[in-house]
């Protein structure tokens, strides 16, 4: 099910396409789950929007002020989970995490930020389904992407 999932390893044409025109980038006006992952040390964030119909993730968007690695991972991951069910989305997180071995520490943290923002959007959706009032669910990152420069 994840055979075609590739992580950004070097500058291949697929990565270049994601850089030039990131997929699912921007805001989603009819989102029913909004999550943010933020690196408080650098101020970098990823915001992830989902719109679900039952268990199906009908539409997704994300935005970030982070680096291009974050943009590429967000673009790839949002394509993976769009039109899939929530269970698939959760498995996609594990699959992406398994692939982190080949990345630099900074790329790994950028990837984590995308995944955490998605998790936050699922949590926000659950809270809203339970009738709680929460505009957006925020997860503060434990590690900072300043890691390489330290």
């Amino acid at each position, binding site marked *: 099910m994840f055979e075609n999932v590739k992580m950004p390893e070097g*500058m291949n*044409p697929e990565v*270049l396409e994601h850089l030039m*025109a990131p997929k699912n980038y*921007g*805001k989603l006006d009819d989102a029913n789950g909004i999550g943010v992952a933020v690196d408080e040390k650098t*101020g970098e964030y990823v915001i992830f929007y989902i719109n679900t119909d039952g268990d199906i993730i009908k539409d997704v968007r994300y935005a*970030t*002020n982070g680096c*291009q690695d974050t943009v590429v991972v967000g673009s790839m991951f949002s394509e993976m989970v769009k039109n899939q069910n929530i269970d698939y989305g959760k498995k996609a997180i594990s699959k992406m995490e398994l692939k982190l071995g080949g990345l630099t520490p900074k790329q790994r943290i950028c990837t984590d930020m995308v995944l955490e923002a998605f998790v936050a959007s699922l949590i926000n959706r659950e809270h809203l389904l339970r009738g709680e009032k929460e505009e957006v669910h925020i997860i503060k990152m434990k590690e900072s992407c300043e890691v390489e420069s330290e």
Partner: protein
Amino acid sequence: MQMSKLYQAKHELWLSILFASFAINDKQIKRDLYNFSTIEFRHMKWVGGDVLKSGDDYNYDRTKTLKKSETVFEVLNHLLVELKETALLYSDNVLDTRMKTDENYIISYITALLEEKKNDAEVTAFNMKRTYADKELPKEQIDALTMFLFEESYKEYELILVYAYMQARTENITHFNVFQDLIDESHFHLQSFGEMMAKMGILALPRELHELTYKVKDIQKFVVDGIAEEEAAKEMCRSLSGAIEDDGLKRFFDFVNYQESYHIELMKRLL
């Protein structure tokens, strides 16, 4: 017509003309379009001022994408369509009349270009060849340069818009002037990086800014983070200058590196 919608149209038109200037190789057309884009940026600023005066607000949302044209005439025809669409949004007030007359002139300029077949040529800005002009650079240097250009073209666009957003809302003259200097510097950097992206065949619009990026709640933190980002940009310039075996590019990255140093000094005045 909602003024915030007009603001979005002006924002998109500024980018379209600016990126058309990067895409086209003819030096005269490039220069003219770049100059027109600076006029459009001022229009956008004036419209934004009027939006705020009216008690409304604007955002940096966009819907238009950059068309990967293959010829100069394709680029120019896309611009004509967008200019004519924008003309439909104007009313009869003084600012709209000014913008209308400016754009009527730009339309006549483009129409004249389209009448001369000799002005048509191939556009190579989107061919994804990733060679830098006639220079033979190793693949890893091209990769590093590619990543740098995407990273920094977005950052310069972000800085222009964030500083413009804060400039439109400050009553502090020192801050206003610092924001203007930083905006002017970022325009130059965005132009430089956009031209390089076009030369490499990887010209692309910077991605949209989310409001979490430009609605700054804590200016102190914003400036401190911004200084750290300038330091990171300096480091990228330094490492690119060290890694790239081309004297012209080395000199360029050293030049940008020293400009970033002074940005940090300017930013400190905001603290």
